[in-house]
């Protein structure tokens, strides 16, 4: 039983790290640009589908980790520059309508191009199989995902905490208007932030594809959970996204051990409980 719990806790952490990557982008965009991006899940799915295409053509998984985030990031920048930018300062409903519409349209385009049936995608041969440690199986690929996502998270943290750009982002999350009036070109910062957030979403799509498979609805499913993660961690908070992601991943996988049917609903129970105690989320800077 102890072995089972350890193995399951590890699975929960891997799952949690995928949530962390997605929630980071979602949370910063939300906190700084005041945009609730319903298309975030779409970029996760796009990442997976781009990886699928790239691997079918080149056979090289490693290439995906570089090329796919660049591609999704670029599409994100295009989206911000052509559409999203026109809606700043308008009622939040317009932004929801736009991103929601993009998410639906994107999903249908995926179905038209790739058909609705799921695709098979495997981890590179190097990470096939499992590592066996004192009676517990750890799939190699999941270990890899865990380490890579931690590395990326640390890089993001350094970027936000230690660089000048990061300081602008942090300030922007507190008060974008003030940052702008200090003479900083806030629209260029928004462009970069949105692109970065979409690049990371695409990257996590690549990482998740060999674990959970690829199908057109994958973005939709994970988006709901990531919203919960952001709410739990506190909107706009980087540390909150990490904490929230790991809490959700762990509670999902451990609850699945005793009561599988509750593994989705637990996310929202945890969210409700935390909102009751701390309405702004665990690390939230404002309500």
């Amino acid at each position: 039983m102890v072995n089972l719990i350890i193995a399951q806790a590890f699975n929960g952490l891997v799952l949690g790290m995928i949530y962390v990557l997605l929630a980071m982008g979602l949370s910063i965009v939300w906190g700084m640009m005041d945009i609730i991006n319903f298309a975030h899940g779409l970029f996760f799915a796009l990442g997976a589908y781009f990886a699928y295409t790239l691997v079918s053509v080149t056979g090289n998984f490693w290439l995906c980790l570089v090329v796919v985030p660049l591609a999704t990031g670029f599409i994100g920048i295009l989206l911000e520059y052509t559409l999203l930018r026109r809606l700043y300062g308008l009622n939040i409903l317009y932004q929801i309508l736009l991103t929601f519409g993009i998410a639906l349209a994107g999903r249908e385009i995926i179905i038209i191009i790739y058909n609705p049936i799921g695709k098979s995608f495997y981890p590179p041969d190097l990470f096939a199989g499992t590592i066996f440690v004192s009676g517990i199986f750890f799939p190699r690929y999941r270990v890899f995902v865990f380490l890579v996502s931690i590395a990326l998270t640390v890089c993001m943290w350094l970027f936000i905490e230690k660089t000048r750009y990061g300081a602008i982002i942090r300030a922007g999350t507190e008060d974008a208007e003030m940052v702008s009036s200090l003479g900083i070109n806030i629209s260029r910062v928004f462009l970069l932030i949105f692109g970065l957030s979409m690049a990371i979403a695409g990257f996590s799509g690549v990482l998740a594809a060999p674990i959970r498979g690829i199908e057109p609805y994958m973005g939709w499913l994970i988006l709901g959970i990531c919203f919960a993660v952001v709410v739990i961690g506190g909107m706009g908070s980087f540390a909150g996204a990490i904490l929230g992601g790991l809490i959700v991943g762990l509670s999902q996988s451990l609850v699945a051990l005793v009561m599988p049917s509750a593994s989705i609903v637990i996310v929202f129970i945890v969210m409700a409980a935390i909102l009751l105690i701390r309405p702004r989320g665990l690390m939230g800077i404002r309500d």
Partner: protein
Amino acid sequence: MSKGINRRTFLKSSAVGGLGLIAGTGGMGLMRPRVVRAEEPVRFLLGTSFSGAYAESGLYTSRGIQLAVKTFGGSVLGRPIEVIERDTPNPAEGVRKAQEAVEKLGIKFLTVSPSSSTVLAVAEYAAKKGVVLLGHAGSDKITGSACNKSTFRWQVPTWGAVREVVPRIIDEYGAESFYTITPKYVFGEDLLRNTKEVLEQRGKKHIGNSDHPLGETEYSSYITKAMAAKADCVFLLNFGGDTVNCLKQAVNFGLQKVSRIACAWGSGITQMKAIGAKAMKDVLWGLQYFYKIDTPQNKAFVAAFSKEYGEVPPYIAASAYAGMITMLECIEKAGTDDPKKVIEAWEDYEYDGITGREKWRACNHQLIKNYFSVKCKGPDEMQDPEDFGDIIGYSQNFLPCEETGCKM
């Protein structure tokens, strides 16, 4: 197939239509003359899932039915065939679309898939309206306790599926102990109950079960538990995309090093393509249909389907095709599109079909057909990209009518 409208029929129909308008009888009759002309089509409804986790159902049912119509020459009773497709993702939508078809469009022949609950809901409606329904779904109830005069079903129900596959696993792998992974809803529970019965009869052990919610994407906890149980065979009782994700993750975890893997109810080639041969070596599948079935009817069907769509037919296309052909043949046999007469012609109808000798049992409207076991090859043994496995056995297992609980 339309003969085109000449001056005479145009005058006739517009006169009737005009009269209808003047009389103001209301409803759809107002728009369309109620006179059956030679070119008045016989209409069919196809209600299935065109979106969501079961979207493959929509794609392939539609293809199967189109091919059946084409094979049949595009007309029945000398009238053109028209198929109307609707998305029926849940029971409520299923009944709503059936209502629209029957009451507004005057459709008398329905095909509905893939979920048992949707088929059951539409079956109740079809019986009330006295139209004909062909259901493509697995639950025992459809031709059991919930059977009715209007409803026919092509698939071997869970009872018979398990009675083909479980003994085959025992013989093929010498399995003594089983661990099951089950989706928590009617279909999964039916499969689990039957599996337990068969294992008890054969004196084998059922050492554990994990339930998972429908549409689960993260199977690590169930797989970790199954691996800890060290059963000879891990038996998957889920369906569609769930089986694909579950099996792929199981292989990721190295479950095959500990246990054999078998699946009770596969949809065949589409799932195999989604999983990939690498993960499936020696996996045993229970299937309603596999493209390698060795009958002249199937060979002709596979050739026609491959020519049309550039791939071998999956089970969903095959069942839709076979069901539609039967429906059309029975209408032709009855010589009328009167549902009562067609049902009479359908009952006890026996013929050589794509799965071998097939017979529609009159007492509960269940098709008596074979269920197949297919064992998968490794990637290096495959002769072509679709050669995922071979049929290693098949059988017909059905409850006697008295025991199905069906009363018509």
